[in-house]
């Protein structure tokens, strides 16, 4: 299965790019996606405690089951307004 990952703000800066496409074997979770990205980026791996995750534009759990085509986003502490 294939999922699109998106990174924002400090997570984007740490990973060095705003998005990526990951090939994963099912079953897979947002935590699996994150582990793949963090393995490529020590800077990103340090952010884990502060990140939330969203699947298809909704806040989700790190252990939710992903489906082919899902969009997974890593969300640092927000600071809008």
């Amino acid at each position: 299965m294939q999922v699109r990952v998106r990174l924002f703000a400090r997570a984007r800066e740490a990973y060095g790019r705003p998005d990526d496409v990951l090939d994963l074997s099912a079953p897979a979770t947002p935590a699996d996606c994150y582990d793949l990205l963090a393995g490529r980026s020590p800077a990103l791996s340090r952010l884990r405690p502060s990140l939330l995750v969203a699947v298809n534009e909704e806040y989700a759990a790190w252990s939710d089951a992903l489906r082919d085509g899902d969009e997974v986003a890593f969300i640092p502490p927000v600071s809008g307004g």
Partner: protein
Amino acid sequence: MTGVETRIYVAVGEQPLDMAGIAARVAHPGAGSIATFAGTVRDNHAGKPVAYLEYEAYGPMASRTLSRIAEEAATTWELLGVAVEHRVGRLEIGETSVGLAIASAHRGESFAALRFMIDELKDRVPIWKRETGPDGSFWIEGPELIKAAPADNDPS
């Protein structure tokens, strides 16, 4: 659910915000109160000068979350209209980053809903700000300022 139909308008984009236009979206002949909030870029933060801010959004999720917050407000209070816009990109001192307007028959509802919406927005909506001043650029994460990369030309 209240008995009033609430008109809701939500936008996230790069164009400068026009508070009069945002307030005009909630005008209603049954309205006795229109309360607005404009978040504006301050020239200082935590005692240090600020040169400008850059806002970055997860656009579709930001809009979706703003719509949900507006619907929650409309379920809690009798509101006639809710309009909220958040700007992204680079903003100079004095520019408006977020604008809200809420219309209701009586002022209690629009005041309470205005406060609720800006608090929820700051808590839940996937938008981030990066502050630049004489000491460089910083991501704002709650009370924390976190040093950002010196140049960042890809706020997607």
